Each structure stands twice: as structure tokens, then as C-alpha cells.
């Protein structure tokens, strides 16, 4: 018999489900067993009891409030699964697997870090930033969106003593343009960071890795894909990586979701 590890399946009561902006909601869950999750890890959530939608949906650990036994998920409604999930009301019990995945590899390094979140990709970086703030470690949180109306209000961040730099494509808040533009500006002008942590759409991540290469800063990117099992069993989430001139598939749910940006094969 194999050694019994603590179970990774949890039934967690929803404490609050509040709109943060537009289609984004913040779900706060009573989840004592998940408070040890590392930033960048995720939970795999059952969104309904029926067979349609069938599969679970993955969401990053957005924040942990250990003293309240609370984890937060930041959920953007994009389809049937997220819509159903966002109908859950306080008191409802959600079925979660987690914490899953590897998380950001280097969290408490004293050297400065840049955290770049594109759209909902800011979800895992929020907690990473908060941990660094708590530990008194230097970081800058960069956040990008089409417009500031697509982002949580400033006080959503200020409440945790986080003060992001903004990039909006319409210039409605902060830098006008893509977050990679802001990142480039920052890399060109500010103190060189020890590493960049990024999460967001694939083209953004490709841009971040390119910038990291150009400025010789290591990058860690959190990838997304449809997941089936979420635990490494089905090979459904494979993504191509470069390994010694060859292509190798790695599982986003298991070897990731955070990967060394240099190794990701963005040209698929």
C-alpha cells in the first residue's frame, strides 16, 4: 500500500461571491486545508452536478487569508462553466481539488521581482505580490487590460497594500498600450529585476519571454489550457517545450502551470 497523503479533495463552503468588475467575481471560501497553497498553484473546481458541463474548471489561488481559513478565487465569466460557478451563493458547498500544480518556483528571493499580469492573469500574481509585501521583499506588480473598466478598482489592490502599475490599451489608466510595452519601458528604465513572473494570454507571455531574453532576466510564465483531470493522469493538457533541440510535451497541470519561460515553445 502506498503512503497515505493528506487528501486533495475538499468540500468548501462559499462565504462570499462578489462582483469585482464587469464579469469578474471574487469567491471567498472557507478552506482551511488549502491555506498552505503556494502562489501559482490552482484548484480544480466542480461547477455543477450535471453532466453538462462535465469537466471541472481550474482557477488559480488568488489569495489566502490563513487567519480566516480563507482562500480567494478570482473568476472571470467566459462560458457555461464559469457562469454556473458564479451563480453559487454564500453557503453553497463547492467541491475542489487542490492545491494542484507547481506554483511559482521562487517566491521569497530577496532580489527584486517584476510580476506581470495580463487580464485575469493577475489572479495568481496578487497572492505572490502580497506574500512579498508581507516579507518586505521588493517587487513591482504590472497589470494590463484593454481598458481600466476591465480591471478591479484601485482599492481592490490598495486594501492589501498593493499598488500596481497599469497598462491599458485605451490609455484609460496608466501606460497606454500593451502590458509588454510597459514591461519593456520598465526594464529599460528601472532597476534590473532578478526575475519576471507572468501570467496572461499566450501572446503576452511570448512577449514577456522575449523581453526577458533581451534584457537577460529569467522569466516564469503560468500557462493555461483546457484541463480534464488536472492531476497529470490524462495527458490532455500537454504543451510543447524545447528540450535539446527537440520538442517534448509537458503537462500544464502537473509540471506546470508555471514554467521556465525560456523552455516554452510558443510557436505552435
Amino acid at each position, binding site marked *: 500500500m502506498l503512503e497515505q497523503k493528506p487528501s486533495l479533495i475538499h468540500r468548501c463552503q462559499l462565504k462570499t461571491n462578489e462582483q469585482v468588475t464587469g464579469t469578474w467575481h471574487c469567491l471567498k471560501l472557507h478552506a482551511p486545508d488549502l491555506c498552505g497553497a503556494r502562489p501559482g498553484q490552482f484548484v480544480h473546481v466542480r461547477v455543477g452536478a450535471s*453532466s453538462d458541463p462535465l469537466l471541472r474548471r481550474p482557477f488559480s489561488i488568488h489569495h489566502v487569508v490563513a487567519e480566516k481559513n480563507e482562500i480567494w478565487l478570482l473568476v472571470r465569466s467566459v462560458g457555461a462553466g464559469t457562469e454556473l460557478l458564479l451563480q453559487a451563493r454564500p453557503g453553497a458547498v463547492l467541491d475542489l481539488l487542490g492545491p494542484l500544480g507547481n506554483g511559482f518556483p521562487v517566491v521569497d528571493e530577496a532580489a527584486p521581482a517584476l510580476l506581470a499580469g495580463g487580464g485575469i492573469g493577475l489572479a495568481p500574481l496578487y497572492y505572490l505580490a502580497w506574500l512579498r509585501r508581507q516579507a518586505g521583499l521588493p517587487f513591482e506588480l504590472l497589470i494590463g487590460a484593454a481598458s481600466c473598466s476591465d480591471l478591479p478598482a484601485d482599492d481592490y489592490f490598495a486594501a492589501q497594500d498593493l499598488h500596481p502599475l497599469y497598462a491599458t490599451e485605451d490609455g484609460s489608466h496608466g501606460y497606454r498600450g500593451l502590458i509588454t510595452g510597459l514591461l519593456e519601458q520598465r526594464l529599460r528604465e528601472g532597476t534590473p529585476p532578478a526575475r519576471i513572473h507572468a501570467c496572461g494570454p499566450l501572446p503576452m507571455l511570448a512577449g514577456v519571454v522575449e523581453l526577458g531574453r533581451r534584457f537577460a532576466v529569467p522569466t516564469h510564465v503560468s500557462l493555461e489550457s483546457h484541463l*480534464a483531470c488536472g492531476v497529470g*493522469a*490524462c495527458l490532455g493538457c500537454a504543451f510543447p517545450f524545447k528540450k535539446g533541440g527537440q520538442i517534448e*510535451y509537458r503537462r500544464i497541470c502537473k509540471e506546470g502551470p508555471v514554467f521556465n519561460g525560456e523552455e516554452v515553445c510558443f510557436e*505552435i
Partner: protein
Amino acid sequence: MRSDPRLSLNLAGIKMANPLIAASGCYGYGFDYTGFVDPAEWGAIVVKGTTLKPRAGNPPPRIVETPAGMLNAIGLQNPGVEYFLEEIQPRLAGLGCPVLVNIAGETLEEYCQIASLLDGVPGVSGLEVNISCPNVRRGGISFGCDPDVVEDLVSRVREAYRGPLVVKLSLEAGNITAVARAAERAGADALSLINTLKGMVIDVGRRRPVLANITGGLSGPALRPIAVRAVWETAEAVSVPLIGMGGIRTASDALEFIMAGATAVAVGTANFVNPLSVREITAGLLRYLEQNGIAHYSALIGAARNER
């Protein structure tokens, strides 16, 4: 619960604590779900399809959800039989339940080669020969459609492998009972059915198939009524035991397959939804036996047929 005598069986020579089997491709090598359930809660585990040479698999996206189901086009990603023997086989005993290796080849010869490499290997309780994987373009699908080819293939694998031999059928052939009979004639000890059915989803925004491989195999509850029917028809055609699968989520689903004529049942996609499926289904089967005063689940095999 897992060693309750009311659920034990001997499937083609494999002693199983219960009739629940982790379906190939859905449970890795048995280690990925240890954070949820003890692998020994399964009657048996069938590992991922194994080929002679390592296979990188298909580019992403490999999966897409469909109404009450999902398509997968993994493309048989696996490290190959040699790696399996060196790195994985030594760990299998730790799982605490019988393990079958699902094998797939691109030629008849490959099937035979893999089978002989696995012959007599400790920790491998039997083979499941996948003659029907819809995602391997060469071979695969064509093998499974022609009864004569199946008979030839299975006979030769039978010679190469002396342990329990399960042949896994698909419905794509259109004549599953003919293929089943061919496999039985050729010496299969049991039959698994059904494999996934080929389907596709088109991304109408991008005007192209969602899966990089264009098509993928449909699994999950959507498939269940078709799979139950296939078991029902096949049970009439052959006398070897059947392993039924396709969309099983609950004990009631498992009972449908058993009552249609399956001796054991495999659970694939449901594990993704609920990693505790094996435990809950086992408990549900025992509850059914209790409520109906049945001493052993085997009394239910084919029960929906007997009454007519």
C-alpha cells in the same frame, strides 16, 4: 470495503477485489490519484496505451468538452515499452491491485513484439490489446474493423503472450459482434468495450477544428447508452467475460453495464470529474446488493437479459 467478498471476482485468471477497473489512458500508471484514493481500492488498473517506441503524442489542443462528454486526441503519448519495463514496472507492485498494460501497435509485428516483451513480466497481470484507438492514423482503426484482421492479430498476440489477454473493441467498425467473435476465436480471454467514438468540434469563431488533430475520441456520459447497447449485443454473441465501459459515473451506471452482461466495468472520464468515483461506486454496488438481498454481485451479470 475494497475487499468485500460480495464483489470479488476472477476475471480471465486475474483475481480482483471488485469489478471496478480504471480505464486505460484515464489513470496514468496508477500514481496520479494517490492524493485522493488508495489505488488498491480498484479491482484493477489498466495503464496508458503503450507502444513499442516512445510517442510524443499530438500537439495541443488535445481535449475539448462536448455535451455530457469530451473529445481527446492524446495521440498515444507514452514513453514506450522499454521505458515502461525499466522505470514503471518496478513500481507497479506498490499499487496493491492487479495492473493490465494496454498495448497498441502500428503493425501486427509491433503488437507481437510488445506482447512478447511483456510476457511473464512480474507486476503485469494481463494485457489489454487496443485494436481500436481512433487517434493513431496509421494502423489502429483499420485493425479493429475487419474481423479477419482481428482474428489474425489476436492469434499472433496470443502466441506471444501467455497471460490473461483482453481485447479492446470499438464501435466504429459497425459490426462489433463479428469483431468480438473473431477475437474470441483467436483466444482472447476477455473483451473490453467500448473505446471512444470519433468526433469533432469546430471553433466557429476561428472557423477550424478545435483539436489540432481535427478529430478526437468521445468519452463520458454522452456515450453511455451506446456503450450499454454494445455490451448487450456482444454478450449475446460471445461467451468470454466482458469489461463494459463508456460514461460510467455512478453505481447505477455500473449496474446498467453489469445487467447488460458485463462481468467487470471500467471507469475513465468520471475520474476527472470525481476522483472518488471508485470508492463511491463500490459503496453504491454494496448498497444495491444489501437492499436487494443479493449475496454476490455476479448474480446481476446479464440480469436484464435473463428476465426476457
